[in-house]
């Protein structure tokens, strides 16, 4: 079997791919080959040039130099159309689907088979039913895409590529939006594709996925290939080191929690959205000093609304939030008043709520705290203090480049997040609410952020960690709450929590704890 694969020309071969965007050297002389009939991983941190490379392969960008060979033959790929013709299909991280079209309409878009739709739709339907049988990719063809769960939408994307005759499938960060169970299903599906002779390139920054499904893996760092190894011959730790370029801690080192007094009490909290639909249904829990409470759940099960209600961004329709003996709900305190009471908040959506993208780093470093006396002088902003404060925060949190004047948008996700975290922790809060602290953040920065959160815990603060990354919850939390459909369906001590137990609760199976 192995010899047979090796005797074939590679399904895809890249030779000396080079690409610059202005001053940014996104891809540096990249060369590697993907053997036919394998699942090949491409791993690297955010900004390592993976997406640029995939966009070059799919004809979205033109490489400045280099050659692409498909099954041994050089091909010129100038547009997605050329890529499709060469048998390359791509499943983008953000699905390329028309939300209000049916599954069938989405799949035939671009390959309608004639100026009139009726005939093309009918023949596509027959072909798709065959494909669905061959690969076990069942999707309701006449359902409107926006009504499908994310996992099925992804399936539509895969079918779309297969329907175009793709025999090399590129998946860009495919599990970012999936539950662990859905991700496992996806991996099984990739296995079936491989068994049928398809070649798959899996682009990701998650080590677990690389280890779980790939045959070989190419590691990228700063636009260049730094390693290419058989997956069997490597380990997560080894890959992580190659990605980051130095040894990293995958597991946060932390001692047992020493929970102290209760700092925040939430009782029977209910939040309804604008349409009057309850998103958080009578949730109660407490946060104690010196512990990290993880709130797990599939995205969209009320965690965001709960977090926003706690932070004061959303008004709950019922319930109490008690901090230091004061009921924040009854007093109707706004986020600023809550901050002054020692309730800090790192929002989930950093770019929308955590920073103002058009502002410089120094201005972002005081958002929400700009009215502190330290930053004021005679009713005006004290620019010197703001600049000094930002420099201090940048140094303490290793924000790179340490330039307070640079626009926040010019920083990487990890550095933006470090600055946001620095801003919120700098005020010495009693309770810190953290939403998706490492979303879009590279491994090196993840390690740093996790250490800071644990340090904060050890300093006797209470933390509520909302994350859709189960690894993060398991790595950091001392106590885990699982949310499903707006309710807390279970509570687990860290010691008794396993990925499987939490996964089941996330899917709505009530846990023991309390229900």
């Amino acid at each position, binding site marked *: 079997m192995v010899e047979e694969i090796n005797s074939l020309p590679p399904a895809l071969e890249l030779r000396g791919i080079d690409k610059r*965007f202005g001053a940014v050297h996104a891809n540096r002389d990249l060369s590697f080959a993907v053997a036919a009939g394998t699942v090949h991983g491409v791993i690297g941190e955010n900004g390592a040039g993976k997406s*640029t490379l995939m*966009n070059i392969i*799919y004809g*979205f*960008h033109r490489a400045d130099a280099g050659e692409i060979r498909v099954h041994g033959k050089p091909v010129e790929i100038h*547009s*997605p*159309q050329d*890529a*499709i013709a060469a048998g390359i299909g*791509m499943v*983008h991280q*953000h699905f*390329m*689907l*028309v*939300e*209000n*079209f049916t599954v069938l*309409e*989405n799949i*035939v*878009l*671009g*390959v*309608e088979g*004639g*100026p*009139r*739709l*009726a005939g*093309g739709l009918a023949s596509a339907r027959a072909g798709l039913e065959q494909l669905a049988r061959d690969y076990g990719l069942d999707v309701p063809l006449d359902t409107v895409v926006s009504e499908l769960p994310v996992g099925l939408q992804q399936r539509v994307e895969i079918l*779309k590529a297969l329907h175009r005759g793709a025999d090399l499938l590129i998946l860009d960060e495919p599990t970012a939006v999936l539950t662990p169970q859905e991700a496992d299903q996806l991996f099984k599906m990739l296995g079936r594709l491989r068994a049928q002779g398809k070649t798959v390139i899996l682009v990701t920054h998650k080590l677990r996925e690389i280890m779980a499904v790939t045959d070989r893996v190419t590691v990228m760092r700063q636009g260049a290939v730094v390693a290419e190894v058989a997956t069997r011959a490597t380990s997560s730790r080894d890959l992580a080191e190659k990605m980051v370029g130095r040894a990293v801690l995958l597991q946060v080192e932390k001692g047992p929690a020493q929970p102290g007094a209760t700092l925040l009490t939430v009782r029977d909290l209910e939040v309804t959205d604008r349409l009057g639909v309850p998103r958080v249904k009578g949730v109660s829990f407490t946060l104690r000093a010196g512990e990290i409470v993880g709130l797990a759940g599939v995205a969209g099960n009320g965690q965001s609304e709960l977090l926003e209600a706690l932070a004061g961004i959303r008004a709950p329709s019922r319930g109490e939030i008690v901090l230091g003996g004061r009921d924040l709900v009854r007093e109707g305190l706004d986020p600023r008043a809550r901050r002054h009471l020692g309730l800090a908040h790192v929002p989930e959506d950093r770019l929308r709520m955590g920073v103002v993208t058009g502002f410089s780093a120094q201005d972002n470093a005081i958002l929400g705290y700009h009215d502190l006396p330290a930053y004021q002088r005679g009713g005006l902003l004290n620019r010197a203090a703001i600049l000094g404060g930002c420099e201090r925060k940048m140094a303490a949190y290793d924000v790179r480049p340490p330039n307070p004047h640079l626009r926040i948008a010019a920083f990487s996700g990890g550095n933006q997040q470090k600055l946001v975290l620095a801003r919120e922790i700098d005020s010495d809060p009693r309770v810190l609410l953290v939403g998706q602290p490492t979303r879009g953040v590279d491994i090196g920065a993840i390690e740093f952020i996790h250490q800071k959160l644990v340090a904060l815990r050890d300093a006797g603060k209470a933390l509520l960690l909302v994350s859709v990354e189960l690894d993060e919850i398991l790595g950091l939390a001392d106590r885990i709450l699982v949310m499903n459909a707006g309710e807390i369906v279970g509570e687990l001590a860290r010691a008794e929590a396993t990925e499987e137990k939490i996964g089941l609760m996330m899917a709505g199976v009530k846990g023991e704890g309390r229900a």
Partner: protein
Amino acid sequence: METYTLIVLLLAATIRVATPLLLAALAGMFSERSGVIALGLEGMMLGAAFTSASVAAVSGSAWLGLGAGVATGMALALLLAFACVTHRGNQVVAGMALNIMVAGLGPALALAWFDLGGQTPQLEGPGQRFLALTWPWAAAADKVPFPGRLYSQLLSGHNLIVYLAAVLVPLSAWLLYRTRFGLRLRAVGENPSAVDTAGISVTRLRYQAVLISGVLCGVAGTYLSTAASAGFVRDMTAGKGYLALAALIFGKWKPYPTLGACLLFAFTDALATRLQGVDLPLVGVIPVQFILALPYVLTVLLLAGFVGTAVPPAAIGVPYAKEK
């Protein structure tokens, strides 16, 4: 006149008023469904009204006028597409700029060419205008009030462009929902990235859509100056481009509901004209200003309260750029 005849005449007037509105609204539908805001309808119509009247006056042929009107609509559409699609300019600004430019350019050229105070010459000669077509036996049918007069006044007796507009509604619906072009057009207005990754050129599709809107606006403008009236006068579109946009939104960007919206707006307009100076029972004579405002008041009310959730094409107004 008896009420029945009054109603028939009112409906016939509605059809005549609705025609340019409908053509412009359909023009807007193609443009907006592709993701380009159709704020330039007014300008494209006005420009076409000017050139078609000019060419018809000089050449003596309404058909050459129509050709010139359509060519003008397309040329202005190309300009708009060049600004909005190729150079990814702000679509609202580009559309408004077009409208303002044409509003000034038309009368200025008319003054330079014809020296008639910013108008074009009266179209009087044979064949210079699109005149009402009388269907067979219309005169005979008119003698039988029902259903004969419906035939003679409502179906018969309009000019060619009115019938063209009527045919365009099912044609547009067919194009939009039953053809490859329609599928792609709807897709590009919702998620241009999906279209691009499917290997279809977003730029080309949007150019096609904007050009179609130019053609339809060209026909609408020609209707105004060579069918509904006999020549071009300053600002003769009188906001119909914007009203068409309102009808399009009220019709939720769909052909048949948009037809309904155009008919409704046209009906209030026709009614307003009819009510001028009429002594109504209970209320007496309504001031003419109030009556003239009626269609616009209705527009505001409808758009504010009764449209429900009109969901525009998701990508409307957003110039397409590949990520990074």
